């Protein structure tokens, strides 16, 4: 095929998203104009997605180290030591934009990508979580997007056989034009068998394995039709289609090959495909890499080097192997029906060289790309709405009068009702490790052959982050730690997925910086460093951005899974107590948002030292096996936590409560929100000992009633206030999702 050399210009660069200043830097790095392929490489590597150019300065502030952190940010996934020679690798990533365009494939390939990031480290994926954020119920595309995304997440994970054991599903109008799909995977590995993305050892062969390369996801806007006039096929970027079957084979083949002593470094071809995987691998090893693009297995005819370099076809891996192990490698991939080909070798030139049909099409100094990558300290400014929002006067709002009806409506509302419609489409029990799944405060898998269990939780309250990004993020980390601790799991580390609007806007950048500040403070307080993560900017349509959504996923450990604590009432006749304040704050509460449409106020700040004491208290209580159940009091406040605790897996347990309002409004008492509060139930005879343990720590505890019967009964200040059948509450709660499909 005759390929014409394309003369690159600053204008062409600008179409590639490269600004004037960056163009000048490229000219300086190369000492000449880039080839068209090189321009594509710079464009991909310096994109926001790959270079973190707007966020890097802020991300550097986050704590990333601890004695138990084996691999921090910068690799395919973070790795944390869990003792006895074992470790967990985990990461979270967004697939927001693709999921909005094609919800099924977008969500599916999001799951596929994060799975590869984890097994690349040598870890066997054992659990997934998903954070999904959709627009409001009545928005025309919402139902379609919910169905497609849930099926996509489910089909991919189910086929591969990794259980999905939790996450979050949130509906809000701020996501009408920009849904969020945040996918988390955790894998288990031996702490002395961690694989990294390093191209080490001059002369070692570079291998390509997995699906063939097609024109998937190549940046369409950069394709001027004249450049491809000899082509008949359309050059539009195509939707990436996931093939979980191939990924399953890839997963098993990679894990099998990693048991042999042949792999030097390995990396998934994710965003910016071959380009970023090869450059990053060479960069980490401070080596060079030489690749012959003619050797890449292609799916379509007429693909040019530019396409091959930037294709984002799924289910592909790049690895560097020891020389002389070719037969062993081919044998294993053949067993798994996969084609593996040698496409190049490691060099010592510190350059990335790409050839096609004997001709050099790109030759770039690797540190030039890394060191000179743009880094922006973008302007930020507190938006005026921030202070306006803080003023909320509730004195003119009527207090709660007919609590039975309000409670029925509230518990059945879309942001509070059961998520079973979603998670029953996910395989939660495959791999036979699942101890706690969706519906618990955190997901838990046991580790076979040990007594250990790994807990993981996903948390973010976007409404809080909108009202106060710093406190909202601080609280998300604090609540994640609490979600683990109520189950008896000690927090270890977090991964994040920072979803924001356009970083070139000053108020968005302010929100981002505030969130990082909050995350930093909280992570330092709980000694849960950030070991991996992802930033997703430009979640904005027609100038309307999403609420700041810095999703947090926290991972922790329990040494004995027999001591885990459930979040549902277990038996009749148990004592029910509240640790912390009884009433909360209606500012920014779910109750106001969902039932009154008010999203204003000053959210309650979390007292980090007190919260930390609460975490250690809960761990102590679970160690001593003093609790029957424990549930974090958060969305919807005290009464919602109580009702949720009544709903067992198939049957329900009622509860009779009797307490005083201590001068607070009824709605503050029932639905108010505040950090550091936990609902617990226990055997009556353990009440004194538990109360003493709580009081010793300087925390408040109130006994509020007893489990039993089939009704929710609340006596307030000595008078009957609530009396409703649990069966009725449960019906509304279980069927809340129906409202999405009644159109």
């Amino acid at each position, binding site marked *: 095929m005759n390929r014409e050399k394309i003369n690159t210009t600053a204008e062409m660069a600008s179409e590639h998203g490269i600004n004037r200043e960056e163009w000048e830097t490229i000219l300086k790095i190369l000492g000449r104009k880039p080839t068209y392929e090189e321009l594509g490489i710079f464009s991909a590597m310096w994109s926001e997605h790959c270079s973190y150019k707007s966020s890097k300065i802020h991300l550097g502030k986050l704590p990333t180290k601890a004695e138990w952190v084996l691999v921090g940010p910068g690799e395919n996934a973070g790795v944390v030591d869990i003792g006895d020679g074992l470790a967990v690798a985990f990461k979270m990533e967004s697939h927001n934009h693709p999921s909005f365009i094609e919800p099924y494939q977008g969500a599916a390939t999001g799951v596929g990508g994060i799975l590869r990031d984890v097994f690349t480290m040598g870890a066997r994926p054992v659990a997934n979580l998903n954070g999904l954020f959709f627009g409001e119920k009545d928005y025309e595309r919402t139902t379609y997007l919910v169905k497609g995304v849930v*099926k996509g997440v*489910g*089909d991919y994970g*189910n*086929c*591969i*056989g990794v259980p999905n054991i939790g996450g979050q599903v949130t509906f809000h109008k701020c996501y009408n034009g920009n849904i969020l799909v945040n996918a988390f995977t955790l894998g288990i590995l031996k702490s002395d068998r961690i694989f990294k993305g390093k191209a080490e050892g001059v002369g070692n062969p570079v291998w390509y394995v997995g699906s063939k390369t097609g024109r998937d996801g190549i940046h369409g806007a950069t394709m001027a039709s004249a450049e491809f006039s000899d082509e008949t096929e359309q050059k539009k970027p195509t939707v990436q289609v996931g*093939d*979980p*079957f*191939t990924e*399953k*084979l890839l997963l098993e083949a990679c894990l099998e090959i990693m048991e042999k002593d042949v792999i030097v470094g390995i990396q998934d071809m994710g965003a910016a495909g071959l380009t970023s995987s090869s450059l990053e691998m060479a960069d980490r090893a401070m080596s060079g890499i030489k690749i012959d693009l003619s050797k890449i297995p292609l799916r379509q005819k007429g693909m040019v080097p530019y396409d091959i370099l930037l294709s984002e076809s799924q289910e592909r891996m790049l690895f560097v192997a020891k020389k002389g192990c070719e037969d062993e490698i081919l044998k294993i991939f053949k*067993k*798994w*029906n996969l084609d593996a080909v040698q496409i190049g070798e490691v060099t010592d030139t510190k350059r990335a060289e790409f050839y096609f049909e004997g001709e050099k099409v790109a030759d770039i100094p690797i540190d030039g790309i890394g060191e000179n990558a743009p880094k922006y300290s973008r302007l930020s400014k507190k938006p005026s709405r921030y202070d306006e929002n803080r003023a909320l006067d509730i004195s003119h709002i009527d207090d709660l009068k007919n609590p039975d009806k309000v409670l029925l409506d509230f518990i059945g509302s879309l942001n509070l009702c059961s998520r079973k419609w979603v*998670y*029953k*489409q*996910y*395989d*939660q*029990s*495959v*791999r*036979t*490790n*699942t*101890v706690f799944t969706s519906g618990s405060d955190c997901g838990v898998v*046991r580790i*076979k052959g040990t007594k250990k269990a790994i807990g993981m939780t996903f948390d973010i309250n976007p409404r809080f982050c909108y009202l106060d990004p710093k406190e909202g993020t601080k609280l998300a980390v604090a609540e994640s730690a609490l979600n683990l601790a109520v189950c008896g799991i000690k927090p270890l580390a977090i991964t994040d997925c920072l979803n924001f609007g356009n970083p070139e806007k000053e108020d968005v950048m302010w929100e981002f910086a505030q969130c990082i500040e909050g995350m930093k403070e909280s992570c330092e307080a709980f000694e849960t460093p950030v070991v991996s993560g992802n930033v997703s900017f430009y979640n904005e349509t027609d100038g309307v951005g999403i609420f700041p959504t810095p999703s947090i996923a926290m991972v922790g450990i329990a040494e004995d*899974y*027999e001591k885990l604590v459930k979040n549902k009432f277990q038996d009749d006749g148990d004592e029910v107590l509240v640790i912390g304040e009884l009433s909360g704050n209606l500012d920014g509460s779910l109750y106001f948002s969902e039932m009154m449409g008010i999203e204003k106020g000053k959210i309650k700040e979390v007292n980090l030292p007190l919260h930390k004491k609460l975490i250690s208290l809960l761990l102590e209580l679970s160690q001593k096996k003093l609790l029957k159940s424990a549930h974090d009091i958060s969305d919807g406040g005290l009464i919602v936590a109580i009702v949720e605790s009544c709903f067992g*897996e*198939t049957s329900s347990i009622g509860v009779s409560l009797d307490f005083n309002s201590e001068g607070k409004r009824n709605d503050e008492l029932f639905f108010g929100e505040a950090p550091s509060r936990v609902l617990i139930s226990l055997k009556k005879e353990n009440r004194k000992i538990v109360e003493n343990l709580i009081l010793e720590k300087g925390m408040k505890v109130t006994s509020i009633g007893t489990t039993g019967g089939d009704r929710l009964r609340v006596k307030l200040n000595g008078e009957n206030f609530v009396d409703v059948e649990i069966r009725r509450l449960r019906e509304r709660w279980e069927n809340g999702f129906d409202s999405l499909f009644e159109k």
Partner: protein
Amino acid sequence: MRATVVEFLGSNCDHDMIYFSKEVLKFKTEVVWYSERDLKNPDVVFLPGGFSYGDYLRPGAMASRTPIMESVIDFAKKGGFILGVCNGFQILCESELLPGALLRNKSLTFICDYVYLKAENCDSPYTKKINKILKIPIAHGDGNYFCKKETLKELKDEGRIAFKYVSPEGNIDEKWNFNGSLESTAGILSKNKRVLGMMPHPERACEKILGSDDGKLIIESLISFAENG
């Protein structure tokens, strides 16, 4: 007992079945690959669940046409015990070791949940020790059992319906027949009652920590049958 677990490309419950056989049941367990022909002399063959060949074409279709399945069919003809779970059940139907087929769930969605099972006939090798309603998970998109009227009659007359989906109290109820199976059929037996195919996963209900260990009862029945007849 000696067990053999067959692995196909894409099987994802193979590890669970091996763990169940080896660590929970303490069977001497062999693992054979789909391209092999030697079953390694087992007492029982386990066909695991989970998306062989990605469920492409029809679930179980491609796995049923692999070399190892010829040996499995021979093994069945000689009166060997075979348990196929989920995708394993689909493979058994596709290889015609069991009659009927598994269609898409009536909801058209994948369903993962606990189901409750009632043993219909307590004289089969797999059900003789079962004296209670079993709580066992399902996880499938195509578990809607279908067969011809005449076949169903035959299955019923010959006592070959092993399990039905029921309510936790043990009643037949469409509400608890999640996938829409014909007459709530959850598992069926071959003519000699030595081949059992079922959609629910007994290997996922094998330890209390996982929420149920009712699945063990099915194999305990088999052990007792094999030992005492």
